[in-house]
């Protein structure tokens, strides 16, 4: 295949799927047998610490469903859709090889590490394996990540609402659907299956309605640009949502979105197979628009979720590990969970490169580094849905835009809720008692400040996105360092972890340095300061990892039998 020759998208989809499936069949098996040595005879925390709340042995497929829907959201759509500006091939290779050799191993490894440590989270594990400083470091990184996730996603959503005004009604109507679903389940006690079906149907009815009645804001609303106005509304909404009781809104919203993820992924791939569009974008874009940063290292932080993402480790160790029925399930839940997200990222790559008629059309959309992105996913994916399923172009675009908005918005309201806890905890350490409303307001002000500083008014586009990816990779690096320390203590082969570890940390530092120059040049002092903090955190992760690994190499070896002993000590009877 000549580079630049047109490629059919089903072929690319099949090659990508085949790579990930082969990775699951062979590489994950190798990791299970020779690296992690999963041992189902060691009881998991779900059994030894069973409490009916956090620790509940859960069916492997159901747990995979949670894990996958918790980790996959807007990020694996936005990242690849931005990164195809360098051509489809680099993004494709990073997503597929990243999923197989980085993300799958990282997610399964985080699950394994946590399961062997009473289901404790990565934060606690960084305290245990890296030291007290490691724990503080984790808190710093997670704080930065939460901070940026809210700002980045607010920008993504406001861009979508301005770019696809037909998505406005379903976006806000979905909140109503979620509120009714919550009432139906907890107040009226209706069966979940029917509520789910009605909820999804209602959501799609809203999409059709929204498609008929686009809501276009005037250029300025209350003295703000349309994009700024949406950001403001979004933060107010997310603030309100985050303080409501979770059963009312957040829980049914997460659930409906989870179902929507499967529906959306299904229709996207079916359309690609039926429509068989040709990829018009170049394999490697030799004519990137002016101002596009160099692919190395930016590609590797622009696509974080979908190739490797530290956030997965938080989910794996925070909830999934406490519910793992037996250790061997970690392969399906962790590794295949990453494959699920890889498929979403691959779908985004195809939508953003094959959904255009000619190369000129594509270049028009990707006219600058901050252009294209999720808008291209909606436009291109819409065209593919139109060709594949025969849905009208505008309705198809509305479906995809709503899907992306809902993913991002759910992450945002949960993000604000989590950050409120962080603020309250931090205030408590300083000896101040902060109520939930004050803490939420603090979070909203900081988030909005960053969102506007990052160009939420439409001026700067998505400048914050690579910074968000860098922090996400940093967290992945920290998790990989913990896995490496455990493996070194057990005197196992550490190369499959070490190579990704070195790679993501190098790329994170490199990207942070490159962005320093960019922020300085554009005189964006807020993001420059944030970048400096991230760079310091990155160097700190490297230093701590090296110290911890060196210590683990020389410490007396531990065996799997030690893990068994710690588990038994923790029998509930002893409490």
């Amino acid at each position: 295949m000549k580079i630049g020759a047109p490629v059919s998208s089903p072929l690319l989809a099949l090659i990508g799927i085949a790579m990930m499936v082969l990775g699951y069949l062979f590489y994950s098996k190798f990791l299970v047998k020779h690296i992690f040595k999963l041992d189902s005879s060691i009881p998991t925390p779900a059994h030894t610490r069973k409490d009916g709340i956090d620790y509940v042995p859960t069916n492997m497929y159901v747990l995979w469903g949670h894990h996958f829907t918790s980790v996959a959201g807007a990020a694996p759509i936005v990242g690849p859709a931005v990164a195809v500006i360098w051509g489809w091939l680099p993004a494709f290779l990073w997503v597929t090889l990243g999923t197989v050799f980085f993300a799958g191993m990282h997610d399964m490894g985080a699950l394994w590490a946590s399961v062997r440590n009473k289901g404790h989270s990565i934060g606690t594990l960084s305290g245990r394996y890296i030291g007290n400083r490691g724990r503080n470091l984790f808190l710093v990184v997670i704080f930065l990540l939460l901070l940026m996730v809210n700002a980045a996603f607010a920008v993504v959503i406001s861009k979508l609402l301005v770019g696809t005004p037909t998505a406005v009604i379903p976006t806000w109507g979905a909140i109503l659907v979620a509120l009714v679903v919550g009432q139906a389940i907890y107040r009226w006690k209706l069966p979940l299956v029917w509520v789910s079906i009605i909820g999804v149907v209602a959501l799609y009815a809203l999409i059709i309605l929204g498609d008929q009645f686009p809501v276009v804001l005037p250029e300025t609303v209350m003295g703000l640009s349309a994009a700024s106005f949406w950001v403001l509304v979004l933060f107010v909404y997310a603030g309100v949502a985050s303080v409501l009781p979770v059963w009312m809104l957040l829980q049914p919203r997460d659930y409906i979105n989870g179902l929507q993820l499967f529906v959306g992924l299904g229709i996207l791939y079916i359309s690609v197979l039926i429509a068989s569009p040709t990829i018009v974008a170049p394999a490697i874009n030799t004519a990137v628009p002016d101002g596009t940063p160099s692919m190395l290292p930016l590609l590797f932080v622009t696509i974080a979720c979908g190739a490797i993402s530290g956030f997965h480790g938080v989910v794996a160790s925070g909830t999934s590990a406490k519910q793992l029925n037996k250790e061997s399930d970690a392969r399906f839940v962790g590794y295949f969970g990453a494959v699920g997200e890889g498929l979403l990222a691959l779908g985004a790559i195809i939508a953003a490169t094959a959904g255009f008629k000619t190369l000129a059309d594509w270049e028009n959309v990707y006219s600058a580094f901050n252009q294209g992105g999720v808008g291209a996913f909606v436009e291109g994916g819409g065209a593919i849905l139109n060709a594949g399923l025969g849905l009208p172009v505008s309705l198809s675009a509305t479906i995809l835009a709503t899907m992306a908005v809902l993913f991002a918005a759910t992450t945002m309201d949960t993000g604000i809720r989590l950050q409120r806890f962080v603020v309250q905890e931090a205030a408590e350490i300083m000896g101040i008692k902060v109520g939930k409303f004050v803490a939420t307001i603090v979070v909203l002000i900081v988030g909005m400040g960053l969102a506007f500083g990052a160009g939420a008014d439409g001026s700067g586009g998505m400048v914050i996105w690579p910074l968000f990816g860098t922090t996400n990779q940093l967290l992945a690096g920290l998790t990989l360092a913990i896995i490496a320390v455990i493996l070194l203590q057990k005197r196992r082969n550490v190369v499959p972890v070490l190579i990704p570890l070195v790679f993501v940390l190098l790329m994170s530092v490199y990207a942070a340095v490159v962005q320093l120059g960019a922020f300085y040049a554009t005189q964006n002092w807020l993001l420059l300061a944030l970048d400096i903090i991230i760079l310091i955190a990155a160097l700190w992760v490297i230093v701590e990892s090296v110290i911890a690994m060196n210590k683990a190499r020389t410490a007396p070896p531990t065996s799997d039998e030690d893990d068994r002993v710690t588990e038994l000590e923790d029998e509930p009877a002893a409490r």
Partner: protein
Amino acid sequence: MTERPGTAWARFSAGLREFYAAPYRRAFARAQRDEDDLFMMIVLAESLGVPNPVSYYTVELLPVMYDRFHDWHTRMGMEHSPLDYLSCC
């Protein structure tokens, strides 16, 4: 619709419920604990020096409160019961 246990439909339905409930179980447990704590405070109001108009009724609940009270004072960082007459441990 009635579900016969063991059928594929029942398993699917149970899986779906788990998919709905599990991610928020901890938040619910925490909210319930807060409410329980408040309830316990009402029952024990008198011994804490707060006049309780319904102590005639709530005194009956004291034995039920023993276990919860024990959990509460250990959670609050007190190794032994702070109330002389309520010596749960």
